[in-house]
């Protein structure tokens, strides 16, 4: 089973839920797809045994043979190519690697070459396997790196994927083709507002989902009301406790220090499994 853990609002506890669940069950592969700001490794302190660079394909233009006809720039939907009668300029950060310019060039002087955007890191804690992506600072495009992380999925494992924050392309790429998505929210107006947007995205993508309410006790009751009205199952509530916040601040998954939570995360996993099999 492949499950993703997401939330529209940042800082609601996605990584905490993903990591604590991963530590409470067996045969787990944890993927951190928040490649802009990966954090799961900070809670797990894994031994990193391998790092692999990740590349995207970008055009390489043979300027000597180029006639500066501008067809490539005309084709590019992302304004990554700019053509003047004397020169052709390429802006690699804007390129989406579609390969269209190579097709559009009538002189066939465009080939593709690799450009690094980040790295994959492979680690382990006991029998828990961790894979995460780390986008190079200054690189705008997270999606190709997220795809590279997801290519590492091992189908015989219980795969838990920590998603990036928000609801746009990196999140969509992460939750795409997962069996279930856990939405972590908090009972505040911001938490509810961003939950609603995420729910719309998941319904559009037809990924089944349920909610985890973190920091229960702060804010108001509107998240519960909304979930009830929309028939969204609340799979777990984690109360606001100073101890949990302090453990998180030190980089300690709270289920390790508060063993009663291990069972709750096991139950969360079983419930998700049941919902997926249904």
């Amino acid at each position: 089973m492949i499950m993703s853990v997401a939330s529209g609002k940042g800082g609601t506890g996605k990584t905490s839920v993903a990591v604590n669940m991963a530590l409470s069950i067996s045969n787990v592969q944890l993927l951190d797809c928040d490649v802009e700001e990966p954090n799961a490794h900070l809670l797990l302190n894994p031994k990193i045994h391998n790092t692999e660079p990740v590349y995207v394909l970008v055009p390489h233009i043979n300027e000597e043979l180029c006639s500066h006809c501008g067809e490539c720039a005309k084709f590019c939907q992302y304004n990554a190519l700019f053509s003047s009668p004397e020169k052709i300029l390429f802006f690699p950060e804007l390129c989406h690697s579609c390969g269209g310019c190579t097709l559009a060039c009538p002189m066939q002087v465009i080939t593709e070459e690799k450009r690094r955007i980040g790295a994959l890191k492979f680690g382990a804690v006991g029998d828990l396997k961790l894979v995460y992506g780390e986008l190079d600072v200054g690189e705008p495009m997270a999606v190709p790196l997220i795809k590279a992380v997801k290519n590492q999925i091992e189908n015989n494992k219980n795969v838990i994927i920590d998603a990036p924050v928000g609801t746009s392309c990196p999140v969509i790429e992460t939750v795409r083709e997962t069996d279930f998505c856990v939405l972590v929210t908090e009972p505040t107006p911001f938490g509810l507002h961003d939950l609603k947007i995420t729910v719309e995205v998941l319904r559009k993508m037809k990924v089944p989902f349920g909610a985890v309410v973190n920091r229960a006790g702060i804010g108001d009751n509107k998240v519960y009301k909304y979930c009830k009205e929309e028939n969204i199952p609340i799979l777990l509530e984690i109360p606001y406790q100073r101890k949990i916040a302090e453990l998180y601040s030190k980089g300690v998954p709270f289920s390790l220090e508060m063993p009663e939570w291990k069972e709750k995360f096991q139950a969360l996993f079983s419930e998700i499994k049941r919902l997926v099999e249904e």
Partner: protein
Amino acid sequence: MKQLTILSGKGGTGKTTLTASLAVLARNAVLADCDVDAPDLHMLLHPEVIKTQEFKGSKLALIDKTKCDNCGFCREKCRFDAITEAVEVDPVACEGCGVCAAICPSDAITMTERVSGYAYISKTKYGFMAHALLSPGESNSGKLVSLVRQNARILSEKENSNLIIIDGPPGIGCPVIASVSGVDVSLVVTEPTMSGIHDLQRALQLIKHFNVKPLVCINMYEINKDNTHKILGFCEENSIKVVGRIPFNPKVTEAMVNGKTIVEYSPESDVAKEIENIWKSCKDSF
């Protein structure tokens, strides 16, 4: 005209809470919510929309099934896995590059306009506001951020405002780059957690990359004083000014529940007082 972007790297550290309070204290700044996929600033500033603009971020492939002979060439050439086995376009995956339309041997594919969201120009009690909402499942948030910033610049010129305050998105990817490039100062809100520190460092690297002046403030600083000291030490080593230490106070959530900024809801609170100090330091930095 100066531009200030509030960033954090890590989500949920208090960007929007702080931005809204700065908007109140600044008086007549133009406000820009650049967190276009999960915007929250409007819930504290209550803008009244005066103009709505369609946002066309990218095109979408459309297959004319009467012409298509299911050869699958488009599926083979699409780099975004946006053509399904049944030779249909997956609109969520399509990035509008146009390769499929260019190579289709039956000329069955056209690229169509697609509305990916809306940009708004609004009025608030505290000044004009540019904001937007990306439609669910749409991409191109970076482009929409650029549109919001363009709207904010136009507003500031029209209104003779000398400051734009920008609420940035979390992360360090394309919408963040679009929110921070070309601004004068970026204030990074962090928290004294391992993730907060890690994400702060990456956000600061990004800010440096774009030659923007960084400032840092630590939210909920007393939740882990050792980590707060680490952040202070790190900033000192790198000559980055720490402009504030905001304590944890349940009043902040209370204010949010009531749809108010903390500086208005509880002006005498320790949090509001510290935000006033932060605002003074921001002003000094321009």
